[in-house]
């Protein structure tokens, strides 16, 4: 899950970069930037969940 989370973070960033290069209209560019950030947020949630401490390791 950790690896997938980081992969989503990078994928979201690539989406943002692609929107700058490929799209000209401010509306579509803005939409894709928001979509990229949403993908990053998903990745961030997965990375946080993957780092939660298992109950047996709490001391």
């Amino acid at each position, binding site marked *: 899950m950790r690896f997938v989370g*980081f992969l989503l*973070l*990078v*994928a*979201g*960033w*690539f989406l*943002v970069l692609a929107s*700058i*290069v*490929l799209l000209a209209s*401010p509306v579509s*560019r*803005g939409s894709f*930037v*928001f979509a*990229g*950030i949403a993908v*990053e947020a998903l*990745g*961030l949630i997965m*990375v*946080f969940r993957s*780092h*939660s*401490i298992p*109950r*047996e390791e*709490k*001391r």
Partner: protein
Amino acid sequence: MTTPGLPEVVTIACLFFIFLTPLAAAGLTLINAGLGRSHSAAHIMMASLSALSIAGLVYFAFGFGWQGFIGGHAHILTLSGKAWNWIAAEPFFFRKLALDGSPAFLTALLQVCCVGLAALIPLGSGADRWRLRASCLSTAILAAWTYPLFAHWVWGGGWLAQLGVNYGLGHGFLDVGGASSIHVVGGLTALSVIWILGPRRGKYSADGMAPAIPGHNAVLIMFGCLLALLGWFGLNSAGAILFVGGEPSGSALIAMNTLLSAAAAALTAAFITNIRFGKPDASLTANGWVAGLVASSATCAFVVPAEAVVIGSIAGAVVTFSIEWFELRLEVDDPGGAISVHAIGGLWGLLALGLFGRFNAPVSNVAASLPAAAGDSGQLLAQLIGVATLLGFVLPLTYGLNWLLNRIYPYRVSVEGERQGLDLHELGAGAYPEFITHTEDFIPR
């Protein structure tokens, strides 16, 4: 290598501001030490001094070569007819850099201080469990690679700064005093280090409790806050001159906004904790103060004082809840509150610039040979792209590098060392040798 010089009065003002910036490092060091435990106080001071030294030397050797300065040599990638400035191509060890009062050398001087400041941020998060040598190695990576790369994109005329001239997104990604390149980069490195280290022993118990481990010296914390204010005056003012083409006279507004933002953030944090806990919390108020300073770093040159108060108030409120959220919900044990204060506070400042920023004077954040930005519209989108880059590129990069380093040289101190305290375990002497110490600290359980 020579670049067009600044007028003498601007150079002198800039030097004065740069000379103030080490006070920000002193302030953060004291805050980190005060928020940690007494049996690791000398260790964190030692780690801070080591981090400042290593960051400065590594940046001198390699970092500046990658970061460069506005108008310097760089590697350019052309995408759909637009030139993307990815990384500087300056010689290492300051070779061919004019050693005078040129903007390039002033940039190098300011950056040597800034990279040290970024390196201090993770130290408070790894307090009580991060080995000294490991923190030094992590600092070297930050100063050699992570920091210079992102700082080039923002402050070296890189592709984020070029978003305005290339794609009509306002003035490009803007950050006057390092909310992104210093604080968010440092805060995300702190998050990575905490993930790798894990929590302190006894922080999270199997029954779901997370007892507070309070800082050991509120006096150090509060004095650190006051020192940090002076440092921020210098940092924000010097950054405005060197990275966005501000005039020295603009420093009056910058200082006012910096102070008001910090004050509003601290009072908001004190107010919220007073309502929630019945009494104002000193450490959360101090964290609010620093979060206000961090948020002001992005916005100070482009907002009016009333907006600075609003931005600071929101920073103070967000940080107060964010610290609790990270600690209790996400089980991120961050003794210094660095993630909330520096990463969240910095991200809020960057977005606030897109929401509140007004640009009455020309902004010079790219090479003079490039055309001026088309206008102010699209600034929020430029700021969002910068935020996306921090989360989508800097966080994986800094996590990956620290994870790899941890594989080679384990970060975490032994169980015995953690029980004993890092002062005695790693340095052989405590910060307060005349204090009475509980004997249980020295007896293996």
